[in-house]
C-alpha cells in the first residue's frame, strides 16, 4: 500500500508541531523519517495512528482519503505503529498483549486462550519472529518485546508499519536482527516508515529519506549518495560538529575508587556485581552499555541514593561507602541525574529554587534554617546568564523550560560547584543539538580544569565523543575497560551485548 500525507498541520498551544507536512511512503520500500528531537516526528506519527486529529491536511492510502477518529480507525486502514516506548502491559503474557483489543472469544465474551495462542504462533512462524506466547512480557528482553510489538501490528493486518526510534533500546546485535526483520517485511510488500535520529541507521536501511525540522519537511535525500554530514546539516539547519574538540587527557591522582562493589535487590539478585574501577582527576571516564544493565544502579551507588551490599567506595582517599547522599554532596560529588524531570528538577518550583535544589541548606544560601532569598536570587541570575538558560527569567517554573534549557539549568547547578568529581548520567538525552553541543563543551572544559568526570550514556556516539577511557557494563558487571582512542564502536558493541570479541 502506498501512503501519502498532504499538508498535515497540527497546532498545539504555543507550538506549531507539524507545518504543512507532505510525504510519500512506497509499497515494499523503507522510508526513513529523520529529524532531531522536537522536529515534529512524534506528532506526525500520532496523527498517522489516529491519536491526534490534524488541524489541516489529508492522509491518503492507495488514493483513498482517510479519516481517523481514533487509533482503531488507523488500525483498520492497515497502519501499524511500533512505538518508541513499547505499548505493552508488563504483567500480561505475550498472548494477552497481542490479542488485546481483538480478543478471540467464545460465547459470553470468554477469552479463548487456545485460539489466541494459535494466532500468535502463526504470525511468529510466518514472519520468523520467535517468541513464547505464555511468558510474561516483563520477563523477556527488550529485543523480544519489540518482536511482540511487531506481531501485534501484523496480527491486525497492518500493511504500513511505522517504527518510532526502534533501535534506541537495542544492542548493536539486536539492531542487526531488527534490520533482518525489516528486510523480511519489506520483501513481503509492506510499506515501512522508520523514524530515527540516528543518521547511519537511516542510511543503512532506507530506500528514501525525508528530513523534518521545526515541524516542516526540509528536504529529501537519496541514501545511495547522501552522507551523514549532509543529513546532519539538513536536520539542524547549519553545519554542525559531530565531534567535540578536545585535547589528550592528562590524568592526575585518583579521585573516585570503587572496589568490589556489589548491590543486591530485595530478592537477593545482583544488580551490580564486583565492580572495581577508578576515575582520576582530569579525565573523562565513559560508561557504555545498553539501558538496564546496571548503569542507573552504579550511579546511584556512587551518589549514595542506593545502598550497596558489599565493597568499598573511596572518594579522595576517604571511605564514603556509608555516607548519605547529603554527605557525599558536601564532600564534593556533583551529580547530573539520568532522569531530568523526575529527579533533576522539580517542575513546579521556580528556576531560582531549582538552582539551589541540592545546596539550599548550605552557606550562603541559608543561615540556620532561614533561606537567604537575596543570595539565592542573585546567584540564580548569574547562573542563567552564564549557562545560557533561556528564557533567563528565574521566577518562571522549571517545568516551563524546554528539555534542553532544563538540562542546562541542571548542568548550571551542578557544574557551578567547584568540586573534584562530576557524575553525569545521560547528560544529553532527548535534547536539541545546540544544547548537546553546549553541554559537551562544558564537560570537556570541566575536565581541562582538572576535575574527574564520570559519564554514563547509552549513546555510543556520545561515549566516543567525550571519553578518555571507556568502561562497558553488561548484566551488572564491568565487562571491559578500553582506551577510547584505541577502541572501535564494533568492539564496544560486542561487549555491550555481553559477548566477548
Amino acid at each position, binding site marked *: 500500500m502506498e501512503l501519502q500525507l498532504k499538508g498535515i498541520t497540527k497546532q498545539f498551544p504555543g507550538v506549531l508541531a507539524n507545518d504543512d507536512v507532505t510525504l510519500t511512503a512506497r509499497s515494499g520500500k523503507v522510508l526513513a523519517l529523520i529529524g532531531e528531537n522536537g522536529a515534529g516526528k512524534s506528532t506526525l506519527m500520532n496523527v498517522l495512528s489516529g*491519536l491526534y486529529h490534524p488541524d489541516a491536511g489529508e492522509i491518503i492510502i492507495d488514493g483513498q482519503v482517510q479519516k481517523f477518529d481514533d*487509533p482503531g480507525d488507523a488500525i483498520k486502514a492497515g497502519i501499524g505503529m511500533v512505538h518508541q516506548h513499547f505499548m505493552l502491559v508488563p504483567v500480561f503474557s505475550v498472548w494477552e498483549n497481542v490479542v488485546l483489543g481483538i*480478543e478471540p*472469544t467464545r460465547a459470553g465474551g470468554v477469552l479463548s486462550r487456545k485460539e489466541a495462542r494459535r494466532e500468535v504462533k502463526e504470525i511468529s512462524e510466518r514472519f520468523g519472529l520467535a517468541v513464547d506466547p505464555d511468558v510474561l512480557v516483563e520477563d523477556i528482553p527488550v529485543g523480544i518485546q519489540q518482536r511482540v510489538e511487531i506481531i501485534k501490528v501484523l496480527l491486525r493486518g497492518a500493511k504500513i508499519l511505522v517504527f518510532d526510534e526502534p533501535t534506541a533500546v537495542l544492542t548493536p546485535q539486536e539492531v542487526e536482527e531488527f534490520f533482518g526483520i525489516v528486510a523480511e517485511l519489506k520483501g513481503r510488500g509492506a510499506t515501512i516508515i522508520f523514524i530515527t535520529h540516528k543518521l547511519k541507521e537511516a542510511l543503512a536501511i532506507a530506500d528514501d529519506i525525508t528530513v523534518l525540522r521545526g515541524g516542516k519537511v526540509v528536504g529529501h535525500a537519496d541514501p545511495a549518495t547522501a552522507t551523514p554530514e549532509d543529513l546532519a546539516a539538513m536536520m539542524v539547519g547549519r553545519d554542525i560538529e559531530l565531534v567535540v574538540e578536545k585535547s589528550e587527557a592528562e590524568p592526575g591522582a585518583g579521585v573516585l575508587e570503587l572496589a568490589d562493589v556489589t548491590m543486591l535487590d*530485595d*530478592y537477593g539478585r545482583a*544488580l551490580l556485581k564486583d565492580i572495581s574501577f577508578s576515575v582520576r582527576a582530569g579525565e573523562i571516564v565513559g560508561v557504555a552499555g545498553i539501558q538496564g544493565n546496571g548503569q542507573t544502579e552504579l550511579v546511584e551507588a556512587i551518589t549514595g541514593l542506593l545502598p550497596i551490599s558489599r565493597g568499598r567506595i573511596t572518594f579522595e582517599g576517604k571511605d564514603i561507602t556509608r555516607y548519605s547522599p547529603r554527605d557525599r554532596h558536601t564532600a564534593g560529588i556533583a551529580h547530573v541525574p539520568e532522569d531530568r524531570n523526575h529527579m533533576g528538577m522539580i517542575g513546579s518550583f521556580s528556576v531560582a529554587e531549582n538552582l539551589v535544589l541540592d545546596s539550599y541548606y548550605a552557606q550562603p544560601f541559608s543561615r540556620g534554617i532561614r533561606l537567604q532569598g537575596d543570595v539565592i536570587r542573585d546567584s540564580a541570575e548569574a547562573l542563567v546568564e552564564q549557562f545560557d538558560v533561556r528564557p533567563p527569567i528565574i521566577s518562571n517554573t522549571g517545568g516551563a523550560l524546554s528539555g534542553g534549557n532544563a538540562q542546562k539549568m541542571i548542568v548550571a547547578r551542578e557544574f557551578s560547584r567547584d568540586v573534584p568529581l562530576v557524575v553525569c548520567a545521560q547528560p544529553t538525552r532527548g535534547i536539541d543539538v545546540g544544547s548537546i553541543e553546549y553541554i559537551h563543551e562544558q564537560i570537556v572544559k570541566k575536565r581541562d580544569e582538572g576535575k574527574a568526570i564520570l559519564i554514563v550514556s547509552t549513546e555510543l556516539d556520545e561515549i566516543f565523543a567525550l571519553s578518555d577511557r571507556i568502561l562497558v557494563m*553488561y548484566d551488572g558487571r564491568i*565487562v571491559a575497560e578500553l582506551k577510547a582512542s584505541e577502541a572501535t564502536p564494533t568492539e564496544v558493541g560486542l561487549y555491550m551485548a555481553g559477548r566477548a570479541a
Partner: protein
Amino acid sequence: MSQTFEKPPAESYELTASRTRELSKSQIRRAQISGVVMLLLAAFVVVFLIPNAEGDATFGLSTARDAVQLSDLVVPVTASLWVLAMVLGFLGATQFVRGFQRRSTLILGLSFGVFVIAFIIWATADQQFNLTSMLVATVSRCTPIALGALSGILCERSGVVNIGIEGMLLGGAFSGVVIGSLFGGWIGLVAATLTGGILALLLAVLAVNFRVDQIIIGVVINILVLGLTSFLSSQVLIKNPDLNNAPIFPAIKIPVLGDIPIIGPVFFNQTIIVYGMFILVGTVTYLLFRTRWGLRTRSVGENPRAADSLGVSVAKVRYLAVIYGGMVGGFAGAWFTLGTVGRFDEGMTGGRGFIGLAAMIFGAWNPVGALGAAMVFGFSESLSEKLSLLDIPIPTEFLAMIPYLVTIVVVAGLVGRARPPAADGQPYTKE
C-alpha cells in the same frame, strides 16, 4: 591506562543470565525480627496468661437450632496454654536461628493464629464460649468488608482509586432501608445497589472527565454521603419512623449442606447478602481473569496508553468498572440495614469501607485474596464482640480497637510487597 579486564567466564554472558540469588541483609533482619516477635508472643503466654489461668474452658460447637448437636469441647486451660506456648517458642526459635525463608510469612501468620487460640482459651477459663456462633458472626461481618474490597478492586483494576467506598456503603445502607421500608427488602436491595452506582458515577465523571485527584473525590464522597444521610435522617426519618423500619432478610438454610456440623451454620445458613458476596467474589474473579472485559479492564489499569493505542476506550472501560464497583459498594451497604438490624443510624458503617480498602491491599487486588483478608478482619470483629461478653479484665474499648489495630499492622507490614495496578490513581490524558 589501557589495561583490559580479564574476561569473565563465557557462560555469564548468556542473554538470559540469571542473576545470582543470595539472601540480602534486610531479608535476614526481617526473618530475625519475626522470630523475635514469635518468641515475645510465647513469652506473653507464659508470663501473663498462664499465671492467671485455671480450670477448664468450655467451647460450644453447635447452636441451638442445629440439626446435628455436637457435644461441647472442654479444654484444660493451663495445660493447653503450656503446649501452645511451647509451639510458639519452638517456631520462634527456629525462625530466629535458621529462618523458614519462603514460608516465613506463613509461619508468622500461623504463630499469630496460635496466639489467638491461646488467648481465647485463657479468656474462656471456667466459662462458656460458642465457637460456632463466633464463626457464623465472622462470615457475616466479613461480608461488607469483602464486598467493599471487591468494590475497590473493580475500580482500581481499571486505574481509578476508590477511597469513597465508605460513602457508598453508607449511601446503600440508607436508601436500602428507606426503599425497603416502602416496597420491601428486594426492591430496597436494588435501590441500595443503584445508589452505589450513582455515587460511583460521580467518581467516574470527576476522575475520568475532570481528572480531579481521586483521593480527594473519594474523601468528598464520604463527607457528602455522611452529611446527606445524617441530614435526611434527622429531617425525614425522625419524623417518619415508618421509613426507617425495613424487613430484614432471613437466613436461608441450604438443604443438606446446611446440616453439616459447624460448616453448615457458618457457610450454608446465611442471608442472601452473604451468599451474594460469595457469588460476586467468584464471578468477579472469573470476569477479571477469563473474559475480554476483564483483560481490557486490567490493561487500562496497567497501561492505559497501550490499551488506547489498540482501540480500547480508556474512558469507557473506566466508567464501566467504576460504576460496577460502586454498585457492589451499594449492595454491601444493604448488609448494614437489610441484612442485620433493619434500621438506619447516622454513620453506622463505622469505617468498614476503609477496612475493605485495607483488605483489598492485603489481598493484592485479587478478589479471592481480599475475601481471605476480609475473613481475618471479620474474625477480629466478631472475636472482640464475643470476648466483650466474657468476664475478662480488658476494657471493651480496647477489644473494639482490635480490627483497626489489625488494619494498621497489616497495611504497615504488607504495602510495598503487594503491587498495585501500575496506573492506579493516575488520570489518563491523551496529550
